[in-house]
């Protein structure tokens, strides 16, 4: 009969695009594409038994960096500007025994960073950044001389090898009041 022949009327899909656009604009507006970036660090375990052994190396292998509450730097008992810290740290790490006041070898070099409780976080991050930059530059140069590639372009195993040549040893003492 008639009822079996009758089909349901077609739904008008003309406005589907509008609905989709509406949703699209909502997600476009709420989306944040920024990736979180930062300086990665590993905290030392609380058990301090490995500390004396680390510090055994004579004074030449320790690069002392102090940051006081006025955000001023004292490096190896001399005042220093933050702009010179990268160069200073590089010379210290890559000394290889030449200068008797600087490190024996990059593996033995330890940077000791001490900050005051009043140091601003901004200053602390710039110091950390400069020290990381010193290591990154040295690693990159080693990668270029050895493999003719940038450090970041090397395969994982070779990156590890270079990291072993220039291990990042930044030791942080508990902050003081100065």
């Amino acid at each position, binding site marked *: 009969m008639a009822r079996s022949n009758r089909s349901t009327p077609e739904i008008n899909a003309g406005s589907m695009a509008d609905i989709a656009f509406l949703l699209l604009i909502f997600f476009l507006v*709420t989306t944040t594409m920024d990736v979180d970036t930062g300086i990665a660090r590993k*905290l030392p375990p609380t058990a301090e038994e490995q500390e004396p052994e680390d510090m055994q190396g004579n004074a030449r292998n320790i690069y002392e960096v102090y940051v006081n509450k006025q955000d001023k730097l004292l490096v190896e008992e001399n005042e220093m500007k933050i702009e010179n810290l990268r160069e200073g740290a590089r010379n210290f790490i890559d000394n290889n025994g030449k200068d008797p006041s600087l490190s024996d070898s990059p593996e033995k070099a330890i940077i000791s960073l001490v900050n005051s409780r009043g140091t*601003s976080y901004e200053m602390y991050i710039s110091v950390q950044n400069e020290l990381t930059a010193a290591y990154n530059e040295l690693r990159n140069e080693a990668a270029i001389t050895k493999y003719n590639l940038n450090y970041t372009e090397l395969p994982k195993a070779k990156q590890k090898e270079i990291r072993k040549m220039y291990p990042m040893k930044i030791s942080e003492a508990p*902050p003081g009041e100065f």
Partner: protein
Amino acid sequence: MSKFKKNKKNGTPPISTASLPDIVFMLLFFFMVTTVMRETEMLVDNTLPQATEVKKLERKSLVSYIYIGSPRGLNRKKQFGTKAKIQLNDSYANVADIQAFIAAERESRAEEEIPLLTTSIKADVDVKMGIISDIKEELRKAQAYKINYSTRKELK
């Protein structure tokens, strides 16, 4: 004659917009998938410091955030003062709460993911290092050794 006239009238055929919803849906799904909604309301001022030697934080699901800064907005500043405060999830917290926070974060993850957990310290530029050191000490006690000082990439 009439044949030619008819052809001229038609002109270019209209472009079919039938596939427009499909294209829009494709874009829509892309943005739906990539969107990360901010799950916490910021209660503290948070201007991150700038740095150049930064690493990307991968796998956001494995990152727990600690926010540090002075209370945000005039009302909160009146109520809580301008001293730097710690924010965990959606509320202010004390240094002593951090161990419990880390424990709770671990609880919500699968066991094999626990060593991969990173704590991201999002501190305001004006924060003093005293409070940061206290937090780091607590994280050491909680054995959450992997940390990340969150920064903005420096514009050169």
